[in-house]
């Protein structure tokens, strides 16, 4: 059964997230005084036609490092789910 990868790509903490800052200010302007910060990342779903979990994980790591994230300024994390 194939795997579904739910991948999150986020800017590293040391990188100024201007989109997140704009959203944070908007939330504060709406009166949400308890909102401390907001950061924006990307959510990517990839379906992998692979039955072996270890192999699916390897592919997922590889595509994240190669294309989906830029290691200079981003981090990634993913969850793998087997689908029927």
């Amino acid at each position, binding site marked *: 059964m194939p795997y579904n990868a739910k991948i999150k790509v986020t800017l590293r903490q040391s990188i100024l997230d201007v989109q997140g800052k704009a959203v944070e200010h908007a939330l504060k302007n709406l009166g949400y005084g308890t909102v401390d910060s907001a950061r924006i990342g990307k959510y990517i779903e990839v379906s992998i036609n692979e039955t072996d979990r270890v192999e699916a994980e390897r592919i997922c790591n590889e595509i994240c490092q190669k*294309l989906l994230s*830029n290691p200079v300024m981003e981090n990634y994390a993913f969850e793998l789910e087997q689908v029927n």
Partner: protein
Amino acid sequence: MGAITAGIVVFPGSNCDHDTEHAVASFRGIRPVMLWHNEHDLQGVDCIILPGGFSYGDYLRAGAIARFSPIMQEVIEFARKGHPVLGICNGFQVLLESGLLEGALSRNRDKKFICTRTTITVAKTSTLFTSRYLQDEVLSIPVAHGEGNYFAPPEVIERLEEHNQIVFRYCDAEGNVVPESNPNGSLHNIAGIINREGNVLGLMPHPERASEKRLGSDDGRRLFESIFDYIAGRQ
């Protein structure tokens, strides 16, 4: 001696390809050759220019998808052999994504797309791209980008400084490299860098938009001239 040819790569979403073609064609004896992203044949060109624009719609990240296009595999090989490769704006982003240059470009510090005239100073003239300039000369060249905020880890910045790889820096009209003259938040006011070997240059400002007086400045012209001089000298 045959005509010098300059390959200009056209990605879907490139929009400065014809401006660059126009600038290149204005030099006597230089022939621009348009290279489509899906091809593998560099047609024997003498140098490659990656133009500005929004290759592949800037989807995912600027330059991220263009880097894996068929033509880029050849361009990377071409660069590794030591031939001149120039990346302008989106072209600079593609060079960083492809690992030919170090670092990354993130969103502009002030959240805005910036389309304006900037002044940059020539920090290094001993390159094949800048031999026609004077050291610390101030150039007026426009920028147009949303993601031009140069970033690299501290050790990379240190290395770039140590090996004198920073070629252009944003400066004020007098040539002072100060925080106020930094349009996008780039570390060390970096506007353009070169690789250690000296044959790959990337910059955010658009020299092709400053290549004749009637455009308001022809300060970008000598960048192209330097490249063609270098190639002519080798023929």
